[in-house]
């Protein structure tokens, strides 16, 4: 078990390293290929040649690529100094550089947006797991019934309708027409839990609707498959009641594959629920990413990418570890 954990952890670190290489490569080499100059992007096109040269030295853009990558990595791990003669700027770890647009340090900037995305993703995740899994299980147990067909039709609608449709629909009905809810807005949970929840309920429900639909279909399919397994027949042949057969034997293996999917989905969302944040005008990581991409703000784009990659790799590491506990066959493999 321990070797398994160590192997997974080493794997995760290596994956992150590859991600830094790829993001660094893409975002620093692309300007080279397209002929645009990151120094100009940073300082603005009207600057004089001396200032541009100064900023190029300070950002290390004149160094060989490999040195730049080394400094970039060192910055992430230990922080780095941007220096041009006596003009030294210290960027503490994890240093992701400075926004081209606002000159703010990228990491603290993104950390400021994280609570919004975190609240959005986690709140929605709780909803969609509860709703998706329970309807999926009920559908599987009542296979072919009216309820099953209704749930599956609803789920089909859920997967097919994009966020910007359901989101806007929910907004216009519940906020503008019925006036039951305030417009989506983020208040810190620690300031006022009630307005935190009421401000996020619409984005949660919208996001959860999409995912719950997928989860309901997945759960149903997994449960149906599991219910046809020989070991379920064995459980019944032992004389166990249906409650134990379903609740203990079938759910245990029927829901296990969902852990993987959930890890991927949550990881991806934590890197920014771009569409949802845009529709509800929530200033989270996704919103930040959108702004950065529009403004060609390379350090912010890199920052969001790295944080998103970190969440996906980290949550998948947790999933792998969980699997070791859930499925005894994994431990030996």
């Amino acid at each position, binding site marked *: 078990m321990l070797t398994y954990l160590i192997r997974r952890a080493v794997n995760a670190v290596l994956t992150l390293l590859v991600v830094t290489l790829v993001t660094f490569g893409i975002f620093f080499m692309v300007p080279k290929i397209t002929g645009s100059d990151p120094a100009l992007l940073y300082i603005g096109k009207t600057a004089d040649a001396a200032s541009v040269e100064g900023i190029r030295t300070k950002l290390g853009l004149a160094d060989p690529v490999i040195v730049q990558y080394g400094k970039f990595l060192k910055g992430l791990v230990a922080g780095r100094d941007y220096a041009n003669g006596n003009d030294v700027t210290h960027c503490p770890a994890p240093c992701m550089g400075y926004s081209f647009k606002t000159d703010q340090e990228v990491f603290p900037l993104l950390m400021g947006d994280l609570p919004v995305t975190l609240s959005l993703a986690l709140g929605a995740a709780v909803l969609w797991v509860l709703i998706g899994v329970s309807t999926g299980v009920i559908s599987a147990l009542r296979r072919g019934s009216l309820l099953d067909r209704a749930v599956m039709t609803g789920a089909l609608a859920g997967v097919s309708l994009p966020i910007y449709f359901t989101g806007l629909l929910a907004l216009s009905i519940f906020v503008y027409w019925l006036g039951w809810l305030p417009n989506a807005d983020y208040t810190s949970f620690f300031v006022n839990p009630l307005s935190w929840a009421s401000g996020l309920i619409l984005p949660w429900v919208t996001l959860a609707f999409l995912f719950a639909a997928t989860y309901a279909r997945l759960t149903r399919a997994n449960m149906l498959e599991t219910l046809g*397994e*020989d070991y379920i027949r*064995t459980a*019944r042949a*032992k*004389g166990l*009641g249906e409650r134990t057969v379903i609740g203990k*034997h079938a759910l*245990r293996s029927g829901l296990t594959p969902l852990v993987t999917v959930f890890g991927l989905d949550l990881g991806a969302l934590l890197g920014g629920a771009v569409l949802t944040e845009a529709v509800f005008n929530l200033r989270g990581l996704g919103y930040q990413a959108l702004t950065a991409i529009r403004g060609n703000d390379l350090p912010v784009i890199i920052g969001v990418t790295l944080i998103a990659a970190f969440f996906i790799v980290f949550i998948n590491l947790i999933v792998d570890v969980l699997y070791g506990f859930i499925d*005894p066959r994994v431990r030996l493999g």
Partner: protein
Amino acid sequence: MSTDSLAGLTLPGDRNTRPFLEVKDLTVRFETDDGIVQAVSGSSFTVERGKTLGIVGESGSGKSVTSLAVLGLHRTRSNAKVSGQIWLDDQELVTATDEEVRKLRGGKMAMIFQDPLSAMHPYFTVGSQIVEAYRVHNPKASKKEARERAIDMLARVGIPQPAKRFGDYGHQFSGGMRQRAMIAMALVNDPQLLIADEPTTALDVTVQAQILDLIRDLQAEFGSAVIMITHDLGVVAELADDVLVMYGGKIIERGPATSVFHDPQHPYTWGLLGSMPRLDRDVRDRLNPVKGSPPSLINLPSGCAFHPRCPYAGRNGDRSFTEVPELRGGAHAVACHLPPEDRRRIFEQEVAPNL
């Protein structure tokens, strides 16, 4: 009132005369999108305590469906329709409630399945699965008692270091050990009826013999009735007191094992015996498989279901094609249109020399 006159009374349910397990006119059908699957039609048989009944037939002949019906395992399938009577120790099971049958399942009657790897839950230890089987029928037993019982059973079925293996998972056992553990799980509540559904099919030949010995020993020890389902006639010859031969969901021959083996009556049984490999036969001789393939249970052939594969069909007019043969005879019964004397002659002159 003396005891003598009491013994003369016929009690309700014929307590003294009814066999331990009596299946009467059992019919199982499944409604599917393709049509109605007539899996078992009108099967009747009995098994006494301490006796072994072998059920033989090709895949899809209704062997497993019959045994699952006895255990009431079709109840969870909403498309299954079971009719007829199943009497186990004077209790009728087809009309019994789900809860009554559940209590018998794994207790008074237990089952061993074909593939022990897929029949064991991959996420629970072997020991905990046996403990679960014990505690569901002995709710008052403590965890410790149940654990001791499970380890005891593992030792009984010949698993070395049972206390250590208790905490292992199914995939950590070898095939033979897994089937032993499954047998331990089935026997943990001393069932009086044990159904073994091809218990050795997934195992090595050497292990097969061990498992069969084990089942025979345990049967002798517990005096339970055993139904052995198999397509392996060798297994039946080894273990069974009585044999049912099934074809297309019907019993086509039924009788004591020695009689069925030495004096088989049905052309299909001849075919089964002829397709058995034997050491004492010249290697260059070919096996004589039954030609053709088993019938679809949705669309059974008219008349005798075996007629498309029967070399003797049509010998007596078109009865084979129009009339379903009844299972006739005393201890050794057969469902065949051929007149008994023709059958005897054909067997002695054409079939027996090639067996």
